[in-house]
């Protein structure tokens, strides 16, 4: 029989365990900007990993310098959609306008750039307004439905005078875009489209072929 592991003595527990655990369980991503909390995880990563694993979580360390938890329950796609559309439209605008800035590249300055809510591109054109509206976000609800949620997840920092800046965990969305740019994702989409077309064709054929009783009537 396997001997149970002896429990960690209280003095071996990380100093910020309670606060770190509280934030991570709320879905928050902790990065260098979080100061003492981030440093506590960084210095006791193995202990945190072990403790959280025992509770059914996985502590993920991202290459861009932040930590977050993964578990069995996660935000639903519906709740993530509005955040995703917001970030994707912003990334698209940054790419379109990257030659206007001195660096000529936008990813490098993603974390240092300060965005003003009044100058966001999301409601500048009918197409973009439509996309935002499709996920239930208007200019009036942007702060509440998107920005505050992203701030609570530790992905952006709200600043005075209706401004905000991204924090390192926004790179999860960059990873997401790279995922969508992969051949696998494109192939998956193509396979789904082909399957859908095949289903549509089959159903169309079955509609064309008269039923037995119809044939008899003819």
């Amino acid at each position, binding site marked *: 029989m396997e001997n149970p592991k002896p429990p960690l003595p209280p003095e071996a527990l990380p100093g910020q365990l309670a606060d770190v655990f509280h934030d991570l*369980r709320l879905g928050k991503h902790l990065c260098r900007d979080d100061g003492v909390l981030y440093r506590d995880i960084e210095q006791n990563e193995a202990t945190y990993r072990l403790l959280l694993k025992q509770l059914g979580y996985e502590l993920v360390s991202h290459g861009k310098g932040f930590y977050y938890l993964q*578990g069995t329950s996660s935000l639903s*796609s519906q709740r993530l959609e509005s955040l995703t559309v917001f970030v994707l439209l912003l*990334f698209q605008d940054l790419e379109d306008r990257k030659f206007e800035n001195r660096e000529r590249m936008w990813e490098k300055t993603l974390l240092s750039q300060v965005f003003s809510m009044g100058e966001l591109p999301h409601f500048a054109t009918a197409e973009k307004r439509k996309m935002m509206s499709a996920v239930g976000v208007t200019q009036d609800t942007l702060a509440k439905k998107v920005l505050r949620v992203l701030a609570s997840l530790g992905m952006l920092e709200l600043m005075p005078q209706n401004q905000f800046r991204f924090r390192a965990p926004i790179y999860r969305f960059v990873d997401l875009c790279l995922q969508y740019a992969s051949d696998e*994702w494109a192939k998956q*989409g193509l396979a789904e489209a082909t399957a859908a077309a095949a289903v549509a064709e089959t159903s169309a054929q079955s509609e064309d072929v008269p039923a037995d009783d119809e044939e008899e009537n003819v």
Partner: protein
Amino acid sequence: MPINPANFLSFLARHYRAVEDLCRQRARFTSDDEIAAFLQPYLETADTNPARLISQMKEVGVLVPGTEDWSPPGFLARFLDELQNRHTLASPQVIQGWIAKLTDLVSRLEKTLAPATVGLEGLELDFVHYLLDEIDQTFRAISDTVHGNCDRIASEVAAYRTIEDAQHLRHRLSRLVSLHDDFLEPVIRIIDITGDFQAVTERIAMACAKLTALAEPDEAPIGEEARRVQQEIVWLRRAVIQRAEESKRELGPLCEAAARESRIAIGVNRALEAIRQGQRERLSLERFLPVLEDTDRTLLVDASIARYLRVATQFHDQPPPELPAEGPAKLASYWTVRTMLCELDQIDEVEDLLNWLMEHCQGATADQALNLLLAIAEHRPDRAIHAVARQNYQIKHICVDASRWRWELSHGKS
């Protein structure tokens, strides 16, 4: 007078050599005679009229007047420089061709030197000299080409950093990426320590070392030449690799960032397109972007425990009383003046209203019955008629002595 671009370019095409030298030498002419003298070597046939050519140069704008002289416009020299830079960027295939040539030369050198074991006897020294000279020239050509390419790449990067026009920038960036991917990377692969260049230069060095050893006893000049080629090879090889690596360090980050941002942009556009087409499920956000959300997040906090304890303190050790199997008794309905009047209005005559009320309101107390009677009398004075005779009414266990009231048709209604 404005320049016609078509005529200008057409003239350049026909007289490219002359115009190129004109620009390279930054020529200035104070008279047509000087121009004619300059053009003389370029006149293709004897009957070409220099005066006509000079006139054309002035017309199309290849020569423009200064304060006291004629000279090519400044933009023309820059244009030709740019054009030449782009055209002379040697492709990796060119370098590969030279390496093939080096391989051939060193094979011939090895074959020539193969029979010699002690001295230079029996060797065709003129041929060996020719091979060493060819190797040296080819090696310099490779070195010059790599250096040239790298210089041009450096100038492209510098130009990219200074351009301010956003439209041109996008084009220039794609050109930089092309330079990196199509020129620099393949060239580095060729000249890298694992590439063909390294292998062939090793063979040359060994052949030269053998030739040096063979020539040593006689102190023949060919030995000195071989040693020089050997040293040059080592030095040039290092310099070439170093220069290419420098260029890569300069261009690499730019191209890597551009390539990465381009990938991100592809992902962004694909995802937005899927959303536009109403295929949001394709994004699979729960799979690709899992964000933890614990629904029982307050289980362990003080408030949660306090709430639990409040519930716990309300616990009773006695079970609640059992409900009777039979259902509850029917609730007694209340009688109102309105309902009574509604019923009475359907009836023409009632001999004794109090009796009628007691029949209709089973279970009513004496107070209730008498109150109803009073209210009816007040509401319908025309139909509720008071009789003089009195009588006893037994209502439950109370006996009431009261006048009798009749319900009649009103006089107007009959």
